[in-house]
């Protein structure tokens, strides 16, 4: 019977949580960034304002 | 073998940009077709599409009188397709094997007989282009697709080019050339791209 198993278990769950949450965060940030860019593109496209186009 | 090339409403888009649309023409056997247009208008892409390297976005391309289109054509691009370390003669022997031709007396025809054993890297730009032209006569193929063939050719080099094209067309061949200024061969058809 392996003693002190809980330390290993918590380590494994912590690493998994960090990796998956980290990946989710990166994906979410990237998705939000490009959604914003696309929205900005739509607003300038169908509202041709006289002002200079706001290039990012 | 008489070959006719029929193009119906060809369209090509690269990276989201449409190069040309609704391009139709028919090239009869024995004719020389000039392809004109500013840089970036898609002249090279059109030639590569005719050669079958590039997939068209739309349109129908038909080689009448030829069972396998890619076996009936020669392609001369911007690069000469030469290996610096191989001699001029080695190139002709390689092309004779690759395309299935005899390859006799070819270097004489393009005026490179003396440079027979020189490795391609020591040839001048003009000589290298002449060696590339030699490929066209190494194996007899009815359709020639030439992308700015006169590039890097001097006076009598252009004369040789015009002679080769004229001979080819007179003996039932068909030639396309993307050009910026005339090659000295009467063109029976001009396809112009990128008018916009």
């Amino acid at each position, binding site marked *: 019977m392996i003693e002190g198993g809980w330390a290993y278990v918590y380590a494994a769950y912590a690493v998994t949580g960090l990796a998956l949450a980290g990946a989710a965060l990166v994906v979410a940030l990237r998705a939000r960034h490009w959604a914003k860019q696309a929205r900005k593109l739509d607003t300038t496209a169908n509202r041709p304002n006289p002002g200079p186009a706001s290039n990012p | 073998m008489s070959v006719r090339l029929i193009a119906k409403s060809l369209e090509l888009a690269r990276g989201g940009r449409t190069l040309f649309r609704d391009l139709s023409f028919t090239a009869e056997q024995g004719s020389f077709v000039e392809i004109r247009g500013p840089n970036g208008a898609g002249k090279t892409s059109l030639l590569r599409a005719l050669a079958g390297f590039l997939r068209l976005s739309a349109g129908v391309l038909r080689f009448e009188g030829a069972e396998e289109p890619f076996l009936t054509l020669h392609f001369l691009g911007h*690069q000469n397709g030469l290996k610096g370390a191989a001699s001029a003669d080695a190139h002709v022997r390689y092309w004779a094997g690759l395309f299935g031709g005899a390859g006799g007396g070819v270097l004489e025809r393009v005026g490179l007989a003396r440079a027979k054993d020189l490795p391609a890297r020591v040839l001048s730009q003009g000589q290298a282009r002449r060696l590339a032209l030699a490929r066209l006569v190494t194996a007899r193929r009815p359709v020639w697709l030439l992308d700015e063939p006169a590039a890097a050719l001097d006076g009598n080099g252009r004369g040789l080019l015009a002679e080769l094209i004229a001979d080819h067309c007179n003996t039932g061949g068909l030639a396309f050339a993307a050009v910026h200024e005339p090659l000295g061969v009467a063109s029976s058809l001009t396809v112009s791209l990128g008018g916009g």
Partner: protein
Amino acid sequence: MNPFLATFRRDFALHWAGGGVLAPLGYFLGATLLVPLAMGPERTLLAAAGPPLIWIAAALAVLATLERVFQADLEDGSLDQMLLSPAPLEALVLAKGAALWIAVGVPIVLAGAPAAVALQAPPERVAAIVASLGLGLAAFIGAGLVGAAVTAGVKRGGVLIALIVVPFFAPPIIFGSAVASGDDIDAALSVLAGCALGAVALGPIAAAAALRLQAE
């Protein structure tokens, strides 16, 4: 002379031009030299672990030659001409692979004999090692053709090829090293032959598909 032989002769000749096989062969011997430098000259240790490490040196030597196999043809326009040949592109790719195997592979295989002895392989096993290297090199090149073709358009794609192709090298290295360390040599040799045949059969097909895309 048919297109296959013409392509084979040309590539074989080009491998010999410009110092030819000296570089890959020298690199193979140099990489083999690193083994005792890393593990120490102690003979019993080397005898126990040395011989299989020839395979790392052989893999590195092959990887070093892959980058220019198709990149040169793409850059100088030769690929367009290969597409216009009556012979299928797969056959021409196979011809280039065969030229690489004979011009570069065979010298490395032959140099494998002294290298094996140097790494304290028992003399009676050297013949099996050389045979296995011959098959292994064919497997490496078969897989390497795919890596070289998909990265042909990438400048300085050498490191990228190494990364892409390393997983495909795993089976030949496993069975090749088993022969080198003397574990049931016959079984390992036969599976290695299987790997080589598989790579030689499938590699050119995938590589030709990739090259057609490169020419677009």
